């Protein structure tokens, strides 16, 4: 495969896509994992499918419309979480389904041959183009600059929202910022693992890292390393056995997390 790697551009693209995804999984995955925003992130991811469908229908690059859908749904979901009270879970679940339904409706309105929707639903790292890498690199850069520029403010907000308010930090700004960063991360990862599987790649590496490391910087680094390893192992299996790359990456990530969890429990029991 190493020889093929230097020979074929699609494998080099897959490598860069893995690296960019891993960096983002490290940063955003830790936030999602620590704040338990899985439901919200899942809602944002699935709503973006409506954007993919609309892009195909209007003849626009689907990733652009998916980004718009994803960011808007992130802001709506954030508002619902704050104001929705007991109904917030129901509303997020409905938005989740509505986004998927819109995607199906938009694509069914298309005339002629249907587009390759599976690549958006389940990802295909081997089909990532140079143009995709450029978009991914741009999103990655935006997310990293925003995160590290406001690192300590974000940490303060994530640790204790109530206190952040009294210390003068604007919680609405930081909540929206975090949701937008999550939305952009999801878009970045869609080409790798797809809308349906994206949550596994955002949660499994960070959850595995949190079993090993108890400080946030360490978790971010470790989570990125794990994500990169999961993507490369998935890529290797997918290339050699001709199976869906997104599904294999997620399979590797979930199995690795479960093994880590088991080992962690065994070690903790021995230490007692």
């Amino acid at each position, binding site marked *: 495969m190493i020889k093929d790697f230097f020979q074929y551009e699609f494998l080099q693209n897959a490598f860069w896509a893995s690296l960019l995804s891993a960096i983002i999984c490290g940063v955003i995955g830790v936030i999602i994992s620590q704040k338990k925003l899985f439901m919200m992130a899942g809602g944002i991811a699935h709503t973006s499918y409506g954007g993919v469908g609309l892009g195909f229908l209007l003849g626009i690059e689907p990733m652009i419309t998916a980004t718009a859908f994803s960011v808007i749904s992130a802001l709506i979901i954030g508002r619902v979480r704050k104001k929705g009270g007991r109904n917030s879970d129901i509303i997020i679940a409905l938005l989740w389904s509505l986004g998927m339904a819109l995607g199906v409706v938009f694509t069914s309105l298309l005339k002629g041959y249907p587009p390759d929707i599976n690549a958006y639903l389940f990802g295909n790292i081997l089909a990532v183009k140079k143009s995709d890498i450029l978009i991914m690199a741009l999103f990655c850069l935006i997310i990293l600059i925003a995160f590290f520029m406001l690192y300590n403010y974000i940490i303060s907000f994530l*640790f*204790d929202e109530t206190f952040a308010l009294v*210390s003068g*930090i604007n919680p609405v700004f930081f909540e929206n910022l975090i949701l937008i960063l999550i939305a952009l991360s999801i878009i970045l990862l869609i080409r790798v693992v797809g809308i349906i599987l994206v949550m596994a790649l955002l949660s499994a590496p960070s959850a595995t890292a949190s079993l090993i490391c108890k400080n*946030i910087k360490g978790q971010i680094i470790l989570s990125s390393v794990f994500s990169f390893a999961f993507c490369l192992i998935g890529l290797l299996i997918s290339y050699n056995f001709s199976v869906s790359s997104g599904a294999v990456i997620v399979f590797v990530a979930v199995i690795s997390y479960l093994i880590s969890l088991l080992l962690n429990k065994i070690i903790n029991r021995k230490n007692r």
Partner: protein
Amino acid sequence: MNETVISIKNLSVSYGKYDAIQNISLDIKRGEFVCIIGANGVGKTTLLHTVLGFIKQYSGEVKVLGKNVKRVYKHIGFVPQTETCEKNFPITVEKAVLTATLGPKIIPFKYFSKNDCYKASKLLENVGLRGYEKRAVGELSGGEFQRMLIARALAQNPEILFLDEPTANIDTETADKIFSILSELNKNSVTIVLVTHDLGLAKKYSTKIINL
């Protein structure tokens, strides 16, 4: 000493049809150690949250240091109920304390200096947590966590320190230790306003008890 730092006039707060607080008026003077006590559901936390500006819909007047509380946030410190914090969040005790020094003005790439860390160490020492700087907040016991929250509030150099149930779910000995720390702060001219269930400690340490 006689300066009124908190003035509440005819304050009423309702949640829908339920009246949480009805027509409360009170003044708190600079240097007082005030405990707000009462049974569950009488509106202790609602009163505190209204004074702190978290509850926006109310009737009556609330002034802190003569102004709307949001304009004097830099002069107050707050120790929330521990439930509001992510107790297992992967940061160190030192970092948790330092977050209080960030302030409302966003400074891009703001990182903490050695001097900031030294100040955090001193504050932790004041609440009996010397040597805890590099520990993860998730490793702290309930009492230690509460003292860390007090150190964090003190990092804001507050004139008035508000605390919401600082001794909830804490054993008697630790609760006494926390009140004793607050009493020391009060002697150093910090006005203390806290909500508690513990009448015994309130009687022992406070200069004024407000029974709702």
